[in-house]
């Protein structure tokens, strides 16, 4: 037997590999952003001088260029940006003159709160729908038509939910629950829990539709497998079969696709943040892209990339928990 690396060394290796992946993602995203914003029209110096269309004098322009290194050759600017990203210093915003890190971090909190609550609610709704379907499918006898109707309704809801545009759904929810019933405020501030409700629901419903369809497909698949029949033969009811057997099988691919869902969440967050007047990373990103505020765009995207890497680690861990087989086959994903 050769000596296998000890647990601490293995952990170290894993962390190193992860850090390498994170660095790669960050480097590529930063490069793409830099190149794209370069290729885009508009002079970044305008961001410094109070937005595009500024009528600042030549001295002001020169001063701003010098201050932000915009007079350097392109490749030096690129290296400078990279260096800043690497040292997590990120520099100062062109437009706001405050450190990018402060801006990005203060925007990250509200977006994270929104995304996490939407992810949780989306999963809960999807789980509820999947459970309802598996329960309704088990209904037999005189109530069988009711069961089939429930299945059809849930399936319909999922299809519908997954194609509701955020901007429209949000507006409808505001009209109903803020203006009509006055249950929740129409605008949202990070401090207020009530204010989080409508944005969360706006983001969660399409997500629930998407996850629900994946989950439903998986549950349906697992339900027809012999182990599910065996479980029923042991007297397990639909809820137990769902909770202990089929859900887990269905959850594995669904969890794997949560990374995909995350990308949609971030995009959805921009819409929702704009709609509900809520601060956040998405809005920051849009605003600063429009202003060509390169350091902020870079900072925001790098943070999103890092969060994504983190999320991948979490989903991989969850997948590992759900599916012990992955651990033994050691498949590289």
């Amino acid at each position, binding site marked *: 037997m050769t000596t296998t690396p000890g647990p601490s060394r293995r952990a170290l290796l894993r962390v190193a590999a992860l850090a390498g992946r994170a660095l790669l993602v960050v480097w590529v995203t930063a490069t793409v952003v830099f190149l794209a914003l370069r290729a885009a029209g508009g002079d970044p110096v305008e961001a410094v001088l109070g937005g595009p269309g500024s009528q600042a004098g030549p001295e002001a322009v020169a001063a701003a260029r010098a201050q932000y290194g915009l007079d350097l050759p392109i490749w030096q600017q690129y290296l400078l940006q990279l260096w800043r990203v690497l040292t997590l210093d990120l520099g100062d915003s062109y437009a706001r003159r405050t450190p990018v890190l402060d801006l990005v971090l203060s925007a990250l909190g509200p977006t994270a709160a929104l995304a996490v609550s939407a992810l949780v609610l989306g999963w809960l709704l999807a789980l509820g729908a999947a459970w309802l379907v598996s329960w309704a499918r088990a209904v037999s006898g005189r109530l069988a038509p009711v069961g089939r109707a429930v299945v059809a309704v849930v399936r319909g809801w999922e299809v519908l939910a997954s*194609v509701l545009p955020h901007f429209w759904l949000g507006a409808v929810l505001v009209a109903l629950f803020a203006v009509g019933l006055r249950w929740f405020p129409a605008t949202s501030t990070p401090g207020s829990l009530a204010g989080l409700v409508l944005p969360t629901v706006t983001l969660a419903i399409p997500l629930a539709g998407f996850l629900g369809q994946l989950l439903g497909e998986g549950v349906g698949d697992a339900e027809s497998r012999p182990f599910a029949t065996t479980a029923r033969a042991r007297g397990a009811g639909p809820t137990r079969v769902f909770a202990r057997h089929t859900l887990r099988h269905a959850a594995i691919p669904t969890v794997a696709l949560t990374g*995909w869902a995350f990308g949609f969440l971030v995009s959805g967050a921009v819409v929702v943040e704009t709609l509900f007047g809520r601060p956040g990373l998405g809005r920051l990103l849009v605003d600063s892209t429009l202003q060509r505020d390169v350091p902020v765009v870079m900072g925001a995207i790098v943070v999103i990339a890092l969060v994504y890497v983190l999320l991948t680690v979490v989903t991989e861990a969850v997948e590992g928990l759900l599916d012990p087989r992955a651990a033994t086959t050691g498949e590289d994903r």
Partner: protein
Amino acid sequence: MRARLLGVAGWAALAVVVLLLLAVAAPDLLAPGDPDATDVTTSLHPPGWGHPLGTDELGRDVWTRVVHGARSSLGVGLVATTIGVAIALVLGLAAGLGPRWLSTVVARIVEILYAFPTLVLALLLVAVRGPGLAASVLAVGIATAPGYARILRARVRGVAVSGYVTAARLEGAGWWRRLTRHVLPNTLWPLVVVVTLGIGQAVVWVAGLGFLGLGALPPAAEWGAMLNAGRVYLTTAWWLSVGPGLAITVTAAALTVLGRALGRVSPS
């Protein structure tokens, strides 16, 4: 025999899709008017005779616009999904069939693509290429690619090591034959369900980009743009969003249902 398996919902979905295709091919059959013809004297009329879905703020007939919008809206979904699937095919097949290092490279590419949410891509593309549907469609296409790629890769791997691909090899089939006869058909069919789901979503995503001013150019009768314009009048003229909203959801639902039915019917 297979048609019977479609079921009532499948048939209804098929009917909707046929209607949609009709709207795409010959919109004038369903709505003979000019979708861009304005008439401020009839602005914001609620649904009624002559205007089944009402009129918008410029007095344009919503029904006519919805029908004529099918072409660009469906096009949006189809093109975006095609782009996504095409990228995913290359990535997924390379990762699933190629050597281990290639699979790792693809995994990293997918990871990087994931890190660019739809919106970020759209923003950058619009910044570089100027606004319009093309940039949004491309962005949505690219942004959906990693998801498809992931599904594909897992599937391709499973198929590649499956007994029937091995059996084909033992029967003397070369790799091209194995790829085209066994691997591709068995990986692509399951994707049909996901893809039909994706078309509807793509329409919605492009619409969402329209909300941020990154979508179709006016006065294009594109559903997303119409829905977005109608949202402003949600409290004063609800019918503006009902027409395009229904069009988007019914289309997406029909495609999804049809995809599911096809997935069931497909020999598997």
